[in-house]
């Protein structure tokens, strides 16, 4: 059994470490403003040209709330495992990580948790409060917030597993940039982070139901906004169930893949 002390120590160090980059948080929030201005005008044009207030069951208002919160979650979940791992492999520094008395995947996950905690309080919570105040009651304030936290943690683990399924590919291809771009694009598009899934053509929308990506953005956001009946346990539990299922499936796959990939280092020397 891994001792809890190891994990909380990594979280703590991560918090201290990422607090050193307070300017980075400010820049990130500023970048969000520019991005959200773009999103605002883009979607305004879409709604104006459609001639109706409601497109695919979402008002302009709904869409904006959704996309702003999606951006906030993006800041919170963002990980750089693909970059970090490929750099560590190229420089040989991966050896230092492999020589920690913890399993590499566990060590990596918990090394990131501090940054997640920070981004939650410094990026997500302020954005959430601003949205909640401006929209004046568009976001329900009840049990959905608690459910959202559970869903968010599951989303975090799914996201980590997706990263860990992509990152070791650099051991086989010796290139990272392209792989990372492909991963980013697929995750952001198919998870509903850039375009709400309701806007997808029917076929694609159904296909996405069977992919893990929506467990990262679509489900937590739906739960947070208490849409699609997720404010009742009967509506909520299937959603959390899907997330939990992906956590299990991806963790198993990720472990298998990593155990295979790490042999590239331990047998071929990287």
């Amino acid at each position, binding site marked *: 059994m891994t*001792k809890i*002390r*190891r994990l*909380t*120590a*990594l979280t*703590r*160090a991560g918090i*201290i*470490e990422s607090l*050193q980059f307070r300017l980075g948080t400010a820049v990130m929030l500023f970048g969000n403003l520019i991005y959200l201005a773009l999103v605002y005008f883009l979607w305004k044009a879409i709604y104006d040209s459609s001639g109706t207030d409601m497109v695919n069951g979402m008002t302009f208002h709904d869409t904006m709330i959704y996309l702003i919160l999606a951006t906030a979650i993006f800041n919170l979940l963002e990980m750089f495992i693909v970059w970090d791992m490929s750099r560590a492999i190229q*420089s*040989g*520094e991966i*050896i*230092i990580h*492999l*020589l*920690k*008395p*913890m*399993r590499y995947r566990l060590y990596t996950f918990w090394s990131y948790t501090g940054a997640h905690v920070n981004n939650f309080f410094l990026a997500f919570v302020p954005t959430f409060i601003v949205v909640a105040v401006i929209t004046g009651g568009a976001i329900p304030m009840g049990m959905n917030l608690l459910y959202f936290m559970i869903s968010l943690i599951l989303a975090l683990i799914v996201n980590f597993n997706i990263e860990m399924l992509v990152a070791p590919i650099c051991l086989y291809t010796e290139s990272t940039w392209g792989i990372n771009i492909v991963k980013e694009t697929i995750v952001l598009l198919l998870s509903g982070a850039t375009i709400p899934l309701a806007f997808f053509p029917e076929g694609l929308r159904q296909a996405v139901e069977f992919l893990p990506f929506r467990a990262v953005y679509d489900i937590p956001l739906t739960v947070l906004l208490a849409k699609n009946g997720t404010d009742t346990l009967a509506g909520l539990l299937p959603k959390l169930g899907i997330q939990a299922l992906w956590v299990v499936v991806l963790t198993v796959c990720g472990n298998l893949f990593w155990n295979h990939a790490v*042999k590239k*280092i*331990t*047998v*071929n*020397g990287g």
Partner: protein
Amino acid sequence: MNSEAVVMKNISKEFRVLNRHEGLKGSIHDLFSRDYRTVKAVDDVSLTVNRGEIIGYLGPNGAGKSTTIKIMTGVLEPSAGEIMVNGRVPYKDRTANAEHIGVVFGQRSQLWWNLPLIESFNLLRDIYLVPEKEYREMLELYRSLVDLEPILHKPVRQMSLGQRTLSDILAAFLHNPGIVFLDEPTIGLDVSMKAKIRELIRGLNEAKETTVILTTHDMGDVDALCRRIIIIDKGRKIYDNDIGHLKSYFGSYRTLRMRLGDDSWVEQVIDEKETDVMHVMQEMQKEHRIKDIQLQEISTEEVIRKIYEGGKSA
């Protein structure tokens, strides 16, 4: 616990390397090439390291030193042979092995770049599950060996190379491991920092009876720290014995320098197996007036150089 820290029996490590071709055409050819060759980085090496020893593990660049260290730490699987470190097979259970070893690679740091050193130490304490009491005692020991205060609250990225290396060595000993591997710990350091680092390594080895396996190109490190050295070249072990033995290994060479009547110096290398210093001086005195003499022992460095260049097997 048995008395051996490391036992290696007939360990070999082979790598498969793609044969690369020159130029643009060659590079395109390489894309589809299945033309591999096998490189033997470590070739049938057997050795035993006893507890509490400081071993100098030497060899020219590319001799296979780092590969051996990586095999001992468990990040590389040997292609053949048996290995036990602290009674464990390192590559089979890398994480369990990692709890009982400490590692410093001179070129990279295991410390958290942005954190003050003390935070890195606290984190390592928790990761290695070091009891608080032992941790305090270890910090006390550190304070008695080096001046810890100026660096303890400094972020690692602001440290000089010397301070960083010092910190990394302290970090490697923090969980009181049975063995510490130091891969070129004094690389790039100034003379006084080197001396400090050597003192520290010896101090920790004596206080905690930690086995130290040290690779270096600096014979000063070897002279200051190691009683026993192992030399490998082209993956093969070519010497494994006391350092005192090494000097007489190629014959007991000494250099005799004599200042003659006209104030010029002449040099004579003497192999004491064949003749002795007094005899050479007597012979010289028959023809010259000797005003002054100097007698120089052959340095470890020169002996090692002879071995590297000669490649003679022990």
